[in-house]
């Protein structure tokens, strides 16, 4: 499917470009803008980004595949990230992670059939002092207990 940036996003890209001496340097922020518009980074998105920034498609692909925050497939409407790194692990992250898997019947990297939820086991999110945590899209939910985590997941289940 062909991908074109919206007029509004073209403006955003232009305001990003002034921050860097080269067009190539804007690839990360431009990919974020693309991901916000398209939901994920498809091959068509990469082609369009490459053409706008006047770099090769391979250079864009290299960046997309290196960084974990660019999704290479459509993710759920609610992307649930559970940190299981040491500080969270010590305070009960794995039972929470298992709870998410059980509740939505998905494993790391999976998306539910209705495209509503996706799960990612993530590395340290900087919530060590407020561990354990989960993040849903851009929001952090911290200082969790298993019960609190369940409550939060349930509330998302009931959302549209």
């Amino acid at each position, binding site marked *: 499917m062909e991908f074109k940036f919206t007029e509004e996003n073209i403006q955003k890209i232009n305001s990003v470009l002034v921050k*860097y*001496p*080269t067009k190539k340097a804007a690839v*990360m922020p431009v990919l*974020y803008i693309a991901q916000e518009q398209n939901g994920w980074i498809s091959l068509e998105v990469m082609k369009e980004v490459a053409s706008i920034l006047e770099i090769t498609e391979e250079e864009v692909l290299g960046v997309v595949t290196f960084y974990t*925050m660019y999704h290479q497939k459509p993710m759920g409407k609610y992307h649930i990230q559970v940190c299981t790194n040491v500080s969270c692990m010590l305070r009960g992250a794995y039972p929470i992670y298992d709870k998410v898997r059980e509740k939505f019947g998905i494993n790391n990297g999976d998306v539910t059939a209705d495209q509503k939820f996706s799960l990612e086991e993530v*590395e340290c999110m*900087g919530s*060590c002092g407020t561990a354990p945590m989960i993040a849903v899209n851009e929001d952090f939910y911290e200082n969790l207990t298993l019960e609190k985590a369940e409550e939060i997941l349930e509330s998302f289940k009931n959302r549209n």
Partner: protein
Amino acid sequence: MERIVLPEIENLHQLDVYIQNQGYEAAKKAFSQTPDEIIDQVKKSGLRGRGGAAFSAGLKWSFMPKTTNKPKYLCINGDESEPGSFKDRQIFEFNPHQLIEGILITCYAIGAKVAYIYIRGEYHKWIKLMQKAVDDAYAAGYIGEKMKEKFSNEFACDIYIHKGAGAYICGEESSLMNSIEGQRGYPRIKPPFPAQNGLWGCPTTINNVETITNVPAIINKGWEWFSKIGEPKHPGTILYGISGHVNKPGVYELPSGTLLTDLIYKYAGGVPGNKKVLCVIPGGSSMPPIRGDQIEGVKMDAESLKAVGSAIGTAGVMVMDEDTDLVKVLARISKFYHHESCGQCTPCREGTGWLEKILNRLVRGEGSSSDLDLLISVANNIEGNTICALGEAAAWPVKFMVTRFRDYFEARVKKQVTLSVSNKVHSMRQTAIPLADVSK
């Protein structure tokens, strides 16, 4: 104790509140002096980097060439992805203008016209908070061309935020530069060092968020004042992030050299259930762990921790109680480094995977004593054989945890239920309590 980086002032993140509290006065003062005078003061203050290496900040600045036709850059490293570290986040949220003011002074001292604040991508909220502070400062004329008017000085610089995208390696300074340039975050071979050949081949200085946030206070109150706080060889306060098995985890700003036991028991409220301390990682997951019976009398500063065979790192203290399964912890740490290895160097790319595999075998109870030697051997072959320090970061926890807790690991491998490691457990209690059943 006065807090320097995170003062107890309500709503300090707001520009007007910051200004009411002497905000941007240090920048004004700095701009009336020469760049060399500023570098000299920071050198004399003894300020050392808070990002991990604890290198002298003033000395680093002095490496920037004085005469060059190329533009100079400043990068602020706010990637903060080391497990156990969550201090810079507090600065973005509670005191962003002091960071901005520190950046202005640093740019002036090194002659940079553009500064990038590299913030890890996962910090969505904190990126927005920091962006708001930058926007407010721009609007009020504290950043950008309007600075000339505001400070009655010819100096002006721009500050931009660059959002990372989930790669721990980008906290390594040369990867961070590649990432800003729009490439994969591969570390570069050094030399040349960033001061000679940094962003787009131009002279670049890279400093940690906390380091730079200290700068306005040093200029305002003088280097003598700063140099007298805490330990003489590593002066100032440090943002200690305490996590894991403590009652009150969080960030505590205290003088360098604060006792590790004070951090755990006095400030972080001790260990839940009054359990004993089995292991402490003092500076983020890459630093060599310390045994529970070693923590008495240990001071939290670069020199003191070096003396006990560890390092200050980011001062992210992770506490593990007597019931912790260290094999599982080490396996999780190794999983992290395997996941985050950029893959450029074979010893790291392959070695971190082997470490994870062997440790997972141990977790499953299928390991043997020879696996412990194998772990150390693999770690030794990674350490020192890679472009960047991720090799060491992956090797050290394995090497030091296996050697320092050898009897624990031996017992775990032999599936012994009762582990006689009570002598290695730190407790405020007098009674020795055996470890939990690890055969589970």
